């Protein structure tokens, strides 16, 4: 078969594939055959809108040939089949040494089709919102459960200095100045002074929305940095965790010691569960990333890091949402002065219980059924092996 015959035999398939790669063009070309879909109000509205626009022209120089394709062929076309056929055409064209320009045309087509065919997607038939829901109801808590040893480690690095600092400052009050400058301490005292009009970061409740934005910007940013610097063999995460632990501990210890605990503890109780856990999770993700380079196990260091990164970024994405929730609580609930301290304590404890049970139980059913399936498969495999032997 010479090149002209080859092109003649297969060009239609190439053109159809080209149309399938361009959804707008496909819609344009198959409009007449899909008139019934007009009944659906959304599609009708969409069509109205797209009708106003200029006619979409194909982007390739084969415009005329594409326009001449029959809509029935396009609707009937099966993308995976077509893609594999054209892959084969490309191989043929290469091995038969057809013209480089033909090969270029086919390879360009395959190039785009390959990206569409292997597009990372949602689970089949699931919308973006659906996969987001799956992520937070199942994947995120499951991942954290699987990686709980990193969470324990980062919690230790974070909470131990925090508690130590609180205790030390009760014994030696001046110890606070070892981690904070006198100015910072004075500013902090002014914020939580029970005689002051506003508690918590000197402001009135009208600036809640401003503080909401600020907490998102600042706290989530800290979380992201805690995670990212973990790539440096975990050093960055360890440092940030410890630093934040010492600082928060110093603040809490000092304010309690000078008798401002009555304003400080109710303020922080509401968002503490979300915020502290989110920091610990960011640290855990960073530590996992960094330690994969230090202790790669049976993998190469790079492979271990790749695998760890895939998992830790999931933890970080979940932690980001927790930072958002914490920011919301801190800005709109914690700062409210009309709510009694006891109620704030109760809500705070409830939040801790919610966070704890979320990570302990969410998505466990699916996990178990998955495990059961796996073990069933293994059993059946083993059974087969036994039979064979």
């Amino acid at each position, binding site marked *: 078969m010479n*090149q002209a015959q080859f092109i003649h035999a297969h060009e239609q398939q190439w053109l159809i594939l080209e149309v399938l790669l361009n959804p707008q063009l496909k819609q344009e070309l198959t409009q007449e055959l899909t008139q019934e879909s007009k009944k659906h109000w959304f599609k009708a509205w969409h069509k109205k809108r797209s009708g106003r626009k200029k006619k979409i022209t194909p982007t390739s120089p084969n415009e005329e040939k594409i326009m001449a394709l029959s809509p029935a062929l396009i609707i009937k076309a099966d993308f995976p089949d077509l893609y594999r056929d054209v892959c084969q055409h490309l*191989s043929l064209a290469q091995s038969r040494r057809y013209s480089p*320009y033909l090969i270029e045309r086919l*390879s360009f087509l395959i190039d785009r089709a*390959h990206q569409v065919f292997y597009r990372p997607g949602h689970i089949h038939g699931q919308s973006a919102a659906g996969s987001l829901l799956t992520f937070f109801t199942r994947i995120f808590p499951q991942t954290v459960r699987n990686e709980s040893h990193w969470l324990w480690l980062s919690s230790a690095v974070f909470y131990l200095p925090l508690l130590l600092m609180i205790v030390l400052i009760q014994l030696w009050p001046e110890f606070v100045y070892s981690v904070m400058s006198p100015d910072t301490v004075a500013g902090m005292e002014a914020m939580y002074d029970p005689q002051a009009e506003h508690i918590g970061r000197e402001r009135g409740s*009208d600036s809640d929305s401003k503080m*909401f934005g600020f907490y998102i910007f600042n706290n989530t940013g800290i979380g992201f940095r805690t995670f990212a610097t973990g*790539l440096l063999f975990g050093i960055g995460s360890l440092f940030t965790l410890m630093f934040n632990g010492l600082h928060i501990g110093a603040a809490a210890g000092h304010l309690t010691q000078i008798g401002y605990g009555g304003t400080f503890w109710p303020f922080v109780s509401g968002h503490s569960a979300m915020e502290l856990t989110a920091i610990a999770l960011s640290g855990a993700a960073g530590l996992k990333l960094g330690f994969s380079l230090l202790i790669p196990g049976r993998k190469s260091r790079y492979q271990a*890091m790749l695998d760890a990164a895939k998992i830790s970024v999931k933890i970080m994405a979940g932690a980001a949402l927790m930072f958002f929730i914490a920011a919301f609580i801190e800005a709109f609930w914690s700062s409210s002065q009309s709510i009694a301290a006891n109620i704030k304590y109760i809500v705070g404890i409830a939040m801790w219980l919610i966070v704890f049970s979320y990570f302990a139980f969410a998505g466990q059913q699916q996990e178990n059924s998955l495990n059961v399936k796996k073990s069933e498969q293994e059993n059946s495999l083993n059974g087969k092996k036994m039979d064979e032997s």
Partner: protein
Amino acid sequence: MSLVGNTIENAGPEMLDTVKIAETPEGVALKLTCVSFYARSIAWMIDALIQGAVIILLLFVLPGLGDFGMGLLFIVMFFLHWLYPVFFEVYFQGQTPGKKLMKIQVLLIDGTMVNWGASLLRNLLRTVDFLPFFYALGVVTMLMSRDFRRLGDLAANTIVVYKRELKEKIISQQDAVEAAVYAPKVALTGKEQQTIISYAERRNDFSPERAEELALLAIPLMDNLPVPNQQRANNQPAELASQGSERLLGIAAYLMGRR
């Protein structure tokens, strides 16, 4: 990004090149042309300018809305700083506006589109690439790695490549070789055949003199052609001037299957 013409033939000693080859499950070899540090930094600068411009614009508008506006400003700053590249990379074929202007895109190492996880990862790890000052670590890693990947790219297994574009003339010239078909005197290897076909397809890019000059390199393939013995093209009579290229086009037509 493009495909390798013929992997087996090109599998010589590894060339000092910025090309990375990824193979698809169908056995097609994808050629990824890695983007150097220079083009990437220009793209980054364009993005930084866009981000800066948006923030400056909002600085004029939002404080007018009071504290609510300030809160909004902080949130916009957060999303611009951390998620702007992620959004564009996931929804616009791996291209932020800056990358689009530079005609480059982010892909996974196997040549497929970048996904949420990989994009988020490579952009969060920007923080490390930025250390200790102004992307110093990122630049060092980029220059040290074979495919110009910074730490974020290495961890997310992504690569920044030139987005492939199809030139229009490729199609229009495809079957336009119109010369008297002429069988070559000797059997040609695959590479030689491809060279001659390439010549035929690119002949309109040369001046006639240059086309003739190139064609005469292949004189052993053509018998009966009066060899221009020390003659220069401008001394020849006009009808002889393009004889060599005509003949070579004939061979190309033969190789492309015309008889």
